[in-house]
């Protein structure tokens, strides 16, 4: 194994631990680090509210950020390799838009009558999460259907974009007829955040996300063959149809789960695979996939820390922070594409 890989395999986990600790220690409410440590070790803090803040809010939020970042980054990498298009991302296929639509239906149409849903096992936040999942999976199903009809990946990508536009169009119509407070609530969700997962919901989120990530790790060998294009890959024994389906399913799970729990999070899926490739200097998925996963976690945790506005008692919206890191990376990559190996 070369030195760069060894270095990254040491530095990235170290950075991850540091950022994770930072996310728990640093927040809108100032709590001394020794108290945070005390709380984590089960001690009694000076103020009872601190205990709640650390265990019920910061800890789940940090883990959510870590897994959401990894999920989005890996699904972005899968899309970029499958479509052999460095500018593909999980939102490109319309899967995020499908999740948005599901949420919009719940928040804008049923929002006022959530109480009527009280009899059902899901209401309020769980209803939103379920709706996002259903929406994402519905679009995923459509994409899977079209992927068996349309052989060309670029055409499939355009179909994904069109489905995304259709979903956005329906959301606009729903917005038009909805009351102001509902529209406001929906817009707030659309800003994205890592704090929507409660400690009770955390295990479910981590389970779904890890499942998707595990599936992605199983795809490393065919992903490398796909770098040569589908014909070469087929000649190397890759069963193209089945592999395409598995990659789409894996991306669908990762995107749907993340969007459902955190809202639509922009740029991490698009930019992190590029950061990972630039750090690693290779598009060999054997190292690239783990590095993308770790980098995604680190970037998401970094965003999570940057969201904290020290003077105020609230957090900046997540989607106000991610483009600050993501957009410059994408612009850098596009401008320097002639000198970047993996573009050629």
């Amino acid at each position, binding site marked *: 194994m070369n030195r760069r890989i060894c270095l990254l395999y040491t530095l990235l986990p170290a950075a991850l631990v540091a950022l994770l600790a930072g996310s728990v220690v640093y927040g809108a409410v100032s709590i001394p680090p020794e108290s945070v440590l005390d709380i984590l070790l089960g001690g009694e803090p000076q103020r009872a509210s601190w205990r709640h803040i650390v265990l019920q809010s910061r800890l789940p939020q940090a883990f959510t950020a870590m897994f959401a970042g990894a999920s989005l980054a890996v699904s972005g990498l899968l899309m970029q390799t499958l479509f052999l298009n460095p500018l593909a991302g999980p939102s490109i296929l319309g899967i995020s838009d499908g999740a948005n639509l599901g949420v919009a239906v719940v928040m804008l149409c049923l929002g006022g009558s959530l109480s009527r849903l009280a009899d059902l096992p899901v209401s309020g936040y769980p209803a939103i999460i379920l709706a996002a999942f259903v929406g994402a999976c519905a679009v995923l199903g459509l994409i899977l259907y079209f992927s068996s009809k349309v052989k060309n990946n670029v055409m499939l990508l355009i179909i994904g974009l069109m489905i995304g536009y259709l979903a956005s169009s329906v959301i606009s119509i729903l917005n038009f007829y909805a009351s102001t407070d509902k529209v406001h609530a929906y817009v707030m969700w659309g800003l994205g955040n890592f704090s929507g997962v409660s400690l009770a919901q955390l295990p479910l989120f981590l389970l779904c996300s890890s499942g998707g990530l595990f599936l992605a790790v199983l795809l490393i*060998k065919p992903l490398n063959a796909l*770098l*040569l*294009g589908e014909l070469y890959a087929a000649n190397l024994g890759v069963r193209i149809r089945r592999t395409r389906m598995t990659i789409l399913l894996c991306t669908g799970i990762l995107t749907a789960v993340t969007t459902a729990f955190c809202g639509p999070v922009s740029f991490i899926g698009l930019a992190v695979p590029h950061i990972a490739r630039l750090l690693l200097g*290779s598009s060999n998925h054997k190292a690239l996939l783990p590095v993308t996963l770790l980098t995604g976690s680190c970037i998401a945790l970094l965003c999570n820390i940057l969201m904290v506005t020290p003077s105020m008692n609230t957090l900046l919206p997540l989607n106000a922070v991610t483009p600050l890191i993501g957009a410059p990376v994408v612009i850098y990559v596009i401008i320097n594409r002639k000198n*970047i190996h993996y*573009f050629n």
Partner: protein
Amino acid sequence: MSERTPVIEAAGLRIGYVLRNGKKKVVHSGLNLKLYAGEVTCLLGLNGAGKSTLLRTLGGFQQALSGEVLLQGKPLSAFSQAERSLAVGVVLTDRTHAGGITVYELVSLGRHPHTGFFGRLKKRDRDIITHSLQAAGISHKASGYVAELSDGERQKAMIAKALAQQCPIIILDEPTAFLDVTSRIGTMALLRRLAREQQKTILLSTHDIEAAIQMGDRLWLLEKERPLACGTPEDLILGGLFETFFHKDDIRFDPATGKLTATAPLTPIGLTGDPLTAHWAANALMRNGWRASSPDDTRIHVNCLGKRQIVITPPNRPPLCVNSIADLIATIETLNTKDDKRNHL
């Protein structure tokens, strides 16, 4: 003629596509073909003749509409995808996105059909990769990025990948298409060497007629609505097949030179003397509308005494001596115009 067992064999093969509405679009039918180990076979044909379709069919990327391809005696349709990836390796013209991996990693992809679920390379795999890199003459670039390779080197790397795949058959789609002239000859020479040394069966499509005639052990000439012509380049030329396959509008194949030329009315001219000078004198004369023939009293006679001494003898006139091909052409042109004027008078 020795009886050898063909590695690939097909009789009455019909190739083409099944359209969405279930109808079949036949590109070519009634193809009879045989490929032998240790030989380079070049598939020649104009665009639209069905070269790519034939290669895709033989490579197992698409099914024949009817008829069966026998691969080492076994029907191609009976091969699983995994078995096929061990039998036929391909080198295509498709743009790849492998710029970000090293040449070694690219060649190691050729081991995919042989490795396990995670593609872990054992010592044997690494040895085979090293040998393939050497055989293709690209081992000096092994740790470089694919993106840094020239077109010729990239082609060698893809050939090394096919070698690492250890298939008895290698099919290449226009392997010399984007290469400069030295890389073209280099690639063809490499393929010939591999066919000889490793007893590979190599089939490639090309538009480069001259290279195919020069380097191909066997040629396949493909044209719509005609049976496939197979044979050694020389037999096909002497049998007059090239002229019929490559006769289009004003273009014709010259069996004497093995080249395609734009047809012009060619007047015979006598040409003798030093073979090298005469060869290039003929080349220049042909460009100017003359065909080199045996000397005759009724036509101009060009006698090449040496590279710098050419004697031109017009019929019934004293000989002229020139010392370059340029002067030869200029003199012949003036003689010709004089003749024309005299004819008019």
